[in-house]
């Protein structure tokens, strides 16, 4: 069902955990649908120094969290914003069609964390929209 890359990222996910003094935290999804992703970002000088996650969800949800956080570390905020779910899926060598929503969730989680960072620091990130309010678990 899953590619080798997905299984690697699921079995040995990178960046699991929290960041105590996170610059921004984003949480998306809801337990009703079976997926919650919480992403922590450490941002310095507009660069993402660290990213961590906690995820409740299926194999694809955990693997996309792992991959998405890996892909944004070291990137600028603007670059992180431009990370699409498609890029995450490609980096994982694909996902089954019914699992594509997990990659969307990962994209949204990163955006939500960036939104939180922007709000806290009272800055504007061009092209960033407010996260949907569906954390209803």
């Amino acid at each position, binding site marked *: 069902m899953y590619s080798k890359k997905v299984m690697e990222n699921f*079995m040995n996910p990178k960046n699991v955990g929290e960041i105590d003094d996170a610059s921004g935290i984003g949480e998306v999804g809801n*337990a009703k*649908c*079976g997926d919650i992703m919480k992403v922590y970002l450490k941002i310095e000088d507009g660069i993402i120094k660290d990213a961590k996650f906690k995820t*409740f*969800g*299926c194999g694809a949800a955990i693997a996309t969290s792992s991959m998405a956080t890996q892909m944004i570390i070291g990137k600028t905020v603007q670059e992180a914003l431009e990370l699409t779910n498609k890029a995450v899926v490609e980096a994982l060598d694909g996902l089954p069609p019914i699992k594509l929503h997990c990659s969307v969730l990962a994209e949204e989680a990163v955006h939500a964390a960036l939104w939180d960072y922007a709000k806290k620091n009272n800055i504007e990130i061009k092209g960033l929209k407010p996260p949907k309010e569906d954390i209803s*678990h």
Partner: protein
Amino acid sequence: MKTIYFDHAATTPVRKEVIDKMYPFFNEFYGNPSSIYDIATISKSAIEDSRKIIASVFNADAGEIFFTSGGTESDNWAIIGTALANEKKGKHIITSSVEHHAVLHTFEYLSRHGFEVTYLPVDENGKVKIDELKKAIRKDTILVSVMYANNEIGTIQPIEEISNICKDRKIIFHSDAVQAVGQIRIDLKKTGIDLLSMSAHKFNGPKGVGALFIRKGTKIDNFLHGGAQENKRRAGTENVPGIVGMAEAISLAYENMEEKNKKIIKLRDKIIDGIKNNIPHVKFNGDPVDRLPNNVNFSFRYIEGESLLLMLNMKGIAASSGSACTSGSLDPSHVLLSIGLSHEVAHGSLRITLGYENKEEEVDYLLQILPGIVQRLRDMSPLYDEFLKGEGDKNVQ
């Protein structure tokens, strides 16, 4: 790594003895049973012998057993066939909220075609509430369909009571016994079930063959139209190897059943106790007493079922979950929701179903690795975090 197979409610391996019986019917006695030459009369007799073997297991008459392509077809035939044959008497039909989709979706189909459906609620152990059944029955009720035993949580329904209620009111009673057949004894002379569905691959027989018991005198339309097979009730060239395999599988399943079940129940209870005693924040699902001998079902809070299955799979264990992710839909199992679980808890369920070939070592291995896997997933879970921080439990049931 050899798989430790703990998903016998999904399907089972075909036993060697069964394959051996099937084999000659592929290319030696391959004749079409409707033909009159020798190799065909051999297939014909093989079918009739199989019918007798299966009937005798249920204390039924051979003429009451009709072969189908599996549990789904049996369910569809039983429900659509009785609905259409009896619609002049009424168009109200009843089923339970914990049925397999083969029953539920067939009722939904009928409700789109002019029938009115009542879905009976169940108690927290998954049992149909008898009072609700009595209340639901109307003058125009023509069919009640309640499964013998549940495929997810293993709960055995009060079939005797339900059948008596239907008999008193002359309502046709169908029971989807796909999970019960091969696991527990069913006496169709004693129990007034009119229609009973079964599927061979659930008791170490082949996939793609099943049967419908139709009690003599039950008014039911044909479902598959065509040739004169199965006493003109079910058309289509008979799956001779499948039918022969089904008969052999059912014989083997009912041989020393009590003895074998003792062993399986011991393993089942070892798993149940092992999980209860070694893993916190779990919920046991299904009826503790009226339960299939081979079924274990637990919800593990704060984690999601598919990840659990994937980790078990990496350790060589095959099991199942009521998680939405494993079904390809968004909602978790309707059975778990029907017994009152929240979506969140339902997502974290694990079903272990045993088979005759499972060994105690396999159970021990499961109990040894499961706590660590659950903990690993909880350590990744934001819900577990919340719980630890004391803000969580209010949300998760």
